[in-house]
């Protein structure tokens, strides 16, 4: 192991909130500011609160015109009943499996690519980088139809022959849910930016020690970009968990439905059972809210880095 300067890389462009020295007396303007911000924050949070409150009301109370805002008795059993009304637990499990798979694959594959594009000079590396940038700009709706066709006509899958005819390909399979969305150009781009900021001495010393390129990536450089790993992991998990269009297109069977699609189907089939629907929606929302509260710093850094780099 090389003894080199292992100072932490400076986190790119997300300046620490700066502290103001000295306390000032509270001015009327400041009070007005607090009140305005509180009202706005309340408006942002009220729909979430209303969701949870509704999920704990009885159907009678929901249907009644003159019931109070809060439930007269808190119906925690709604959650148990909702799980019986629709397989929300299965939906959530499916979403979780897909989101975890996406997260692991994206962090692995995109970090390798980002590292190679940032630190290794090879023929065509610039061209490849610009290809990823171009890929970043393709609207989802331009690529989603042919993506669906590729899945549908995937050769030798789901009863298809070598030309992709005869069966249903990857439709209604885990493959379709996981593979097409596994690696994002955005993650490649983000990783590249982070690896670019690492000091060159680090890698030179490792190279002198005779380490191969892959080991330099895995053992020396990647431990230095842990914030990037966390950021990409959180953002990938979030967008995978929240994705709706793609799973809607490629799944038909109930057992493969993800939570977002499951909710929309439940809405269509049992539109008036608001207590169950809101219980399911709470279930779909809660993991992201928790994840955000825990990893807020990384979310913020990720979005801000994406914005300013």
């Amino acid at each position: 192991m090389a003894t080199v300067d292992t100072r932490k890389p400076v986190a790119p462009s997300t300046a620490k909130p700066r502290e103001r020295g000295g306390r000032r007396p509270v001015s009327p303007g400041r009070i007005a500011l607090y009140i305005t911000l509180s009202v706005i924050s309340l408006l942002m949070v009220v729909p979430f609160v209303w969701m949870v409150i509704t999920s704990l009301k009885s159907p009678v109370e929901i249907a009644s015109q003159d019931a109070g805002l809060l439930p007269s008795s808190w119906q925690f059993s709604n959650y148990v009943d909702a799980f019986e009304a629709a397989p929300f637990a299965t939906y959530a499990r499916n979403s979780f499996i897909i989101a975890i798979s996406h997260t692991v694959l994206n962090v692995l594959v995109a970090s390798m690519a980002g590292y190679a594009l940032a630190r290794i000079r090879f023929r065509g590396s610039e061209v490849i980088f610009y290809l990823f940038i171009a890929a970043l700009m393709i609207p989802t709706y331009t690529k989603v139809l042919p993506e669906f066709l590729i899945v549908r006509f995937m050769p030798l899958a789901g009863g298809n022959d070598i030309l992709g005819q005869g069966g249903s390909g990857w439709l209604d399979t885990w493959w379709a849910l996981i593979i097409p969305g596994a690696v994002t150009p955005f993650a490649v781009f983000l990783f590249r930016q982070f690896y670019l900021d690492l000091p060159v001495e680090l890698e030179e010393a490792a190279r002198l020690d005779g380490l191969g390129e892959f080991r330099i990536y895995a053992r020396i450089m990647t431990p230095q970009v842990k914030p990037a790993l966390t950021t990409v992991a959180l953002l990938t998990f979030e967008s995978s968990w929240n994705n709706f269009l793609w799973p809607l297109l490629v799944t038909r069977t109930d057992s493969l439905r993800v939570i977002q699609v499951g909710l929309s189907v439940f809405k269509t089939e049992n539109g008036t059972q608001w207590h169950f629907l809101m219980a399911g929606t709470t279930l779909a929302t809660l993991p992201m809210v928790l994840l955000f509260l825990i990893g807020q710093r990384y979310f913020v850094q990720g979005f801000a880095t994406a914005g300013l780099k």
Partner: protein
Amino acid sequence: MLMVAPALLHASLWIGLPVLAAVVLAFTKYDVLTAPQFVGLDNFRDMLDDAVFRKSIVNTVVYTFFTVPFGMLLGLLLAMALHTGLKARGIFRTAVFLPQVTATVAIALVWLWIYNPGNGLFNALLSFIGIDGPAWLSSTSWAMPSVILVGIWQGIGMKMLIYLAALQSLPRELYEAASVDGASKVRQFFSITLPLLKPATFFVLITSMISAFQSFDQIYILTDGGPANSTTMMTYEIYKSAFREFRVGYACAQSLVLFVLLMGFTLVNRRIMGGTRGHS
């Protein structure tokens, strides 16, 4: 290089190939079951006569026009308020950003319930002050404003966050120098803050427009494009053409129009903003 290979292969198969396929299929008649037939520019000609698609373009522009600039203004104001170093800034920031990390489907379901004409929260609150609220989402005049409100509500967080990060990276010395020279706060805002925020503004504008142009989930849940196509968007028409009418060639042609419009906006914006790109 071996390390880029997996990502490159993935992008080629799931982004490169689809884009090429979309361009080719746009000139065909294709229903998935039978082989595509080359029809030249027919799809594009059909689009000109397609009143619903035209309506969807207008709707998309209206939706974008109202959600993006309003959202940006609110986002900037919020960012500036939070940048004043007040206490509990973290709580405000979290509250405003929360809708951004939540699934649009979940958010749309909650708003569907809030907008419920019979006993939704909105009309319940309105009835307190004696107003008989309309059936928000099934009224041709109220459906679009209702959808726009949800769009603004969900999008503010991201815009605020990017502006906040940009504000925090502005050099403090400039403001100190300006204060010494006797420039007022308002003057400082227009002469220092706003010009320096140009890259952030450009970025927020482009990303917000791209995502507003591709709104789909909330339309699917809230209105199904109705009533009378008053809230249908380009993305929704693409979806309908392909998966309800099985006109895949036509849908690809529509998706190319969306692509070209987005590229056009990006280039025009870049020109107007003076070719600013993010720093570093």
